[in-house]
């Protein structure tokens, strides 16, 4: 068992409201990612679950039992810290053994568990070293091993890959997914990297300024963002948002462009809307019924693809194109829109319009 449920968490540091009513339901055995920009309250949420942060309000339930007042030790959780927090005077072996020693396990049991973990994470040769004698990536693996050596209710991970270089980060991403599959258990993983979130998670909770914006599978969060902020935060390059309103069977842009009104739109005429278009749902190479005309603003070659910046009225729209695309800034071009994959948000509230028809 390993369900974690938090309800209405509130916490302020001085004048800063770090958590403003966070409610999350983490199912047993899931890889649950909390995603948000820095300062959104992700780490505070995790620390609240761990019992390291005193809450102003709210409750934490572990396996259905209220654990709000419990000490960190009593909660039976394991955590990987962003800074790894390996004990500097202990060897890797002793660091990994620490959670078992705290629980008075026998030395033979400890030796077996540490060996199993060092095999799983390929750190056998590091066991007698101290943290100061390890690289960042090695410390990261030891920190993981220390968390994984027990079978706690849940594993909490606070941006564990942030301090690694890009190549190691990609490698560890795969590794963590593999570990989750082989060990099972509930993982709660905090990150500000949407690629990590989308690639590893069963469930993603997007959080901003201490409030949960959306909870769903990576696909749901990407394909059906609950509001314009989630749409803008998840996905790279960022979604392009164009001001418009509906008029009969057309969408009319603030800059004068028109597009056929998507079949699924329910908005009444004249209501201010935002049309959200992702770079991959736009094209400067294909032709279609729905298109916008604009001027080439610039090209961003990224190797496997090129981003074409197109100025439409006063807005810049990013379009994904093949790496072979060419053009000179200022030249007129047509941007074809895949309206079935476009998003509409209320310009006032920022909420996504009901998409019952999709």
């Amino acid at each position, binding site marked *: 068992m390993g369900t974690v449920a938090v309800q209405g968490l509130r916490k302020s540091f001085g004048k800063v409201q770090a958590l403003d009513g966070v409610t999350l339901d983490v199912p047993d055995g899931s890889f649950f990612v909390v995603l948000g920009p820095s300062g959104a309250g992700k780490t505070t949420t995790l620390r609240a679950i761990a019992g390291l942060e005193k809450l102003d309000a709210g409750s934490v339930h572990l396996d259905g039992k209220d654990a709000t007042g419990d000490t960190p030790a009593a909660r039976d959780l394991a955590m990987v810290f962003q800074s790894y927090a390996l004990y500097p005077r202990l060897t890797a072996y002793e660091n990994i053994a620490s*959670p078992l*020693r705290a629980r008075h396990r026998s030395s033979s049991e400890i030796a077996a568990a540490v060996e199993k973990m060092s095999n799983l994470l390929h750190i056998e040769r590091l066991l007698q070293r101290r943290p100061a004698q390890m690289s960042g990536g090695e410390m990261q693996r030891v920190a993981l091993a220390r968390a994984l050596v027990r079978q706690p209710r849940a594993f909490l991970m606070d941006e564990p890959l942030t301090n690694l270089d890009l190549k190691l980060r990609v490698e560890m991403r795969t590794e963590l997914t593999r570990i989750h599959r082989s060990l099972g258990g509930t993982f709660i993983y905090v990150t500000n990297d949407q690629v990590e979130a989308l690639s590893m998670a069963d469930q993603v909770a997007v959080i901003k300024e201490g409030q949960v914006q959306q909870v769903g599978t990576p696909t749901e969060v990407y394909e059906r963002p609950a509001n314009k902020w989630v749409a803008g935060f998840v996905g790279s390059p960022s979604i392009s948002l164009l001001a418009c309103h509906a008029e009969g069977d057309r969408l009319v842009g603030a800059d004068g462009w028109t597009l056929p009104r998507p079949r699924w739109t329910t908005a009444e005429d004249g209501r201010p809307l935002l049309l959200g278009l992702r770079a991959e749902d736009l094209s400067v190479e294909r032709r279609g019924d729905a298109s916008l005309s604009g001027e080439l603003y610039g090209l961003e070659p990224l190797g496997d693809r090129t981003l074409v910046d197109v100025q439409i009225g006063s807005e810049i729209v990013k379009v994904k194109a093949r790496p072979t695309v060419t053009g000179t800034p200022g030249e007129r071009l047509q941007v074809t829109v895949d309206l079935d994959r476009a998003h509409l948000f209320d310009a006032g509230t920022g909420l996504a319009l009901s998409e019952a028809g999709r």
Partner: protein
Amino acid sequence: MAVSVDEAVSPGPVRDRRPPRRRSGGRGRVVIEVAVLAVLAAVMLFPVLWMIETSIKENRDVYAIPAKFFDFTVTLDHFKDVFVDSGGGPTTLSGSFLNSVIVAGVSTVLATVLGVPAAWAYSRFSVKAKKDQLFFILSTRFMPPVVVVIPIFLMYRQVGLFDTKLGLILIYTAFNVPFTIWMMKGFVDEVPAEYEDAAMLDGYTRLQAFWKFTLPLLLPGIAATAVFALIFSWNEFVFAIFLTSSDAVRTAPPAIAGLIGGTTVDWGLVAAASIVFALPVLVFSYLVRKHLVAGVTLGAVRR
């Protein structure tokens, strides 16, 4: 990145044992530098040198005019006189040294035992009006002892602490706790709180986490702080002379001062007693010199 406190607080130059590279200017400049430094050192250290000489001269050489720098008879009689009286028993001066050891030692231990946990608490927990509390604690050190000694003398007489070792121990502890809190708070701040967080998730209580994981990292800081406290208590003169009256309680500083003032002054004995008095501080400072520098320059070094 995780770093040990040793690394965290030791500024580079302390560890760097290579000789510094000569600056430009050539040999002439070096000679002048050495000469100036030698003269300065001689001037500064002359009283110490003279004290050492006096302590090992026979009495007739001590009072010889003109003063003898080199050709005197060496004797250790004065050192013997510090501890053993003419009848063969221990001197009152040796009792004063013992009093100093007890008073300075106990007050340092007390200040450390009380101050280190307080510093940890101020560093780790959110306390109401923390800055004001810390300022209040510091403010108790603003006044020099001589300002408060009369009221304390009167209070001590009332409660029966006058002319007791306990009285001196308490007043020295009271003076050293604020210092310990302030100095140790700097050291605790340097140790990431996440070690304790990690230990608590491992299954330890908060106090166990402090005891097992933070305290060992604080030991260099505790050593440095304790030496400072020890030096204060050991050297303290004003409280010691006002709050004691009997030889059984008196500590070394007023006892040595008391040697001067009769019709004749046994300078050889004064010098020998002073050297015996200065030695422990020198030895302790030497033992923890690396951490003293680290403690003093804490925060001054960019990492």
